[in-house]
């Protein structure tokens, strides 16, 4: 068959697969680069999340309005009142008002004026009757903080009166001091991976289907396996980029403990493998999807199912069994564990190996399933 002689000879087989994967990644990268909004949301969202969530959850409670009703008027009551005033001026935990009428105080508590009422009853004494705390338990944080603070004041008064020495229980922190903001760092890396994987890879395929772009590459000779691999890797590259930028920011901005350059490299590898697993799960979910409504419906659920069970914000051990079960198959759990080992506990890279094995296996299983489910027909 005679063809124009200037036509170059095309690659086939493995070389075609490599070129196909490169083409898909090239397109994903260029698409991201040309849409600054995507970059901003991918990179900035997790950082904003870190700052807002870290600072809002990490703040100590302050200026909680309370009423103290002194019905005793004795020395113990005076000590208790001094304790409350110390709490007000020192930690600024409370804004205290001293009332004489118990019923009035409770009425105002019910109207939301006070979060707690501390009653020092007639004949207050360490031998009884002791003080009573009535708190607004709709706000659990304030309730617990007030309960604990008042209990502490009374314990000290009681202990002082009996002249006993009660030994404090020993407390030892295994790692250097961590505030909640730093604790959230690895979670924010994982969140940025999640966001990054969303704007590329599997979702790109869904978007292509919606706009009809996909017809352009489904008719090319690259194999379906190459298409799947290419799109998963494209998602991985974009998600890793987001994850590594946030990882870099955390290394620079928060007081993390890292065991040298090897651990930083291991952190980057963890980011890559977590991105791979998350991109693979996105593509699996959208292997058959055809409309944006699927995406809109799925996003919230997937976000909730991947991010929260991972232990990003709260320890996994305290979850109910069903949530722990989700957590055990959630790739973010493993990415997060590895990053916490490497960044917070100062562990050597080897600590992350078991997590890497899980992430890689997870990505492979998702990839194979996607290849089976993916339909090349339009």
């Amino acid at each position, binding site marked *: *068959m*005679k*063809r*124009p002689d*200037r*036509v*170059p*000879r*095309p*690659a*086939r087989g493995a*070389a*075609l697969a490599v*070129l*196909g994967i*490169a*083409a*898909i990644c*090239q*397109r994903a990268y*260029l*698409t991201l680069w*040309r*849409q600054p909004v995507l970059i901003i949301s991918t990179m900035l969202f997790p950082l904003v999340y870190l700052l807002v969530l870290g600072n809002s959850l990490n703040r100590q409670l302050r200026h909680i309005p309370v009423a103290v009703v002194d019905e005793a008027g004795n020395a113990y009551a005076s000590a208790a009142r001094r304790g409350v005033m110390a709490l007000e001026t020192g930690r600024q935990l409370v804004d205290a008002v001293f009332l004489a009428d118990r019923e009035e105080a409770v009425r105002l508590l019910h109207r939301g004026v006070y979060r707690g009422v501390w009653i020092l009853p007639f004949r207050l004494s360490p031998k009884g009757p002791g003080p009573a705390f009535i708190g607004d338990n709709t706000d659990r944080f304030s309730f617990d903080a007030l309960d604990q603070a008042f209990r502490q004041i009374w314990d000290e008064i009681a202990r002082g009166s009996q002249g006993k020495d009660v030994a404090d229980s020993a407390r030892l922190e295994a790692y250097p001091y961590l505030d909640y903001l730093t604790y959230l760092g690895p979670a924010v890396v994982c969140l940025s991976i999640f966001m990054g994987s969303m704007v590329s890879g599997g979702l790109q395929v869904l978007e292509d289907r919606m*706009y*009809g*772009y*996909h*017809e*352009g*590459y*489904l*008719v*090319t*000779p*690259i*194999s379906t396996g190459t298409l799947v691999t290419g799109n998963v890797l494209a998602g991985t590259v974009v998600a890793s980029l987001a994850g590594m930028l946030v990882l870099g920011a955390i290394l620079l901005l928060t007081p993390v403990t890292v065991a040298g350059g090897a651990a930083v490299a291991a952190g980057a590898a963890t980011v890559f493998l977590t991105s791979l697993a998350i991109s693979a799960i996105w593509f699996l979910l959208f292997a058959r999807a055809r409309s944006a409504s699927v995406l809109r419906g799925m996003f919230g659920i997937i976000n909730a199912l991947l991010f929260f069970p991972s232990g990003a914000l709260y320890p996994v051990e305290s979850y109910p069994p069903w949530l722990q079960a989700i957590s055990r198959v959630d790739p973010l759990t493993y990415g997060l564990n590895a990053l916490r080992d490497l960044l917070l506990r100062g562990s050597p890279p080897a600590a992350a190996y078991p997590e890497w094995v899980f992430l890689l296996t997870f990505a492979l299983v998702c990839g194979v399933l996607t290849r089976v489910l993916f339909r*090349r*027909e*339009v």
Partner: protein
Amino acid sequence: MTRGESRALEPLLDPPPFLDEPVRPVAGSSASIEVERLTKKFGETTADDAISFAVRSGETYGILGPNGAGKTTLIRMLTTLLPPTAGTARIRGRDIVAERPAVRALIGTVSQAVTTDENLTVEENLSVQGKMYGLAGRGLKRMIDRRLSQVGLSDRRRQIARELSGGMRRRLEIARGVLHSPHVLFLDEPTSGLDPQSRRSIWEMLGELKADDPELSVILTTHSMDEADFLCDRVAILDQGRILCEDSPAALKHSLETGERTVIETDRVIGPVDRETLRSLGGSNWRASAPAVVEFQSRPGEGLGRLVAQRLEENGFRVLQLTIAPVTLEDVFFSYTGRGLRTE
């Protein structure tokens, strides 16, 4: 107009005699595409019903039909995007189901959908596409340069696709379709939605692409008669999933009993008796579109138009205007389907 309203055309609605004959490639020329009884059903609906045709190497074959005729489904089957329900088709001898990767390497497609990425530049779009066809390095660059110059987009290579006009975007699609020098190019409504000037320039560009590669076979679907007339060596009329007729545009037009349309305007009202006398001269589809006008169709070259005008003058009418027009493919389509092409 619906099928029921076209009683005057009923004799013409019989299928043409060659419809059930087996399709054979023309002797001395290799068949580029052979389609045999290709059928696609979606549930109870039959989109394409036992379609057979063959396209020679270097030939441009038009598939003409209204929306919903089954054109796009046919193209999607031939380009491996849809598996057929029954029947077979081969592109250069490669089966479209059993040898899909080979078929994909042989064909280029320009689909109705916009398949170039609007966020990429003209050149980047071609670069991504070229790699998917196994082109790389200098070979790829050379092909990009060549195709861009052929479609007249060389000076727009760094422009983002989103910023291109509709016509230019379509040119980019075509450059993408032929980038890897396919043996068969599928064009699914290549100029739909474009202004007349852009359409014309795309037609000319397609002509140049063909001149550059004389062996390139093109399958083109359209619902534009003038496009089929201008571009196609042969045309098949597809309606409700069946090919009704197939020939060169000229032969199709000439084959019609009603291949010529005559409109004669006179100076006064033509009465029923005169009309009946004229009608007895022959022709068909006689109409009185105005009291002083006669309108009819006749076989091309028969000279009935002049004869009728002459007869009117003999009867004391003064002919103010005589228009004899050759039929268009639209008339051919109408005669086979009883419907206008744009009727949904």
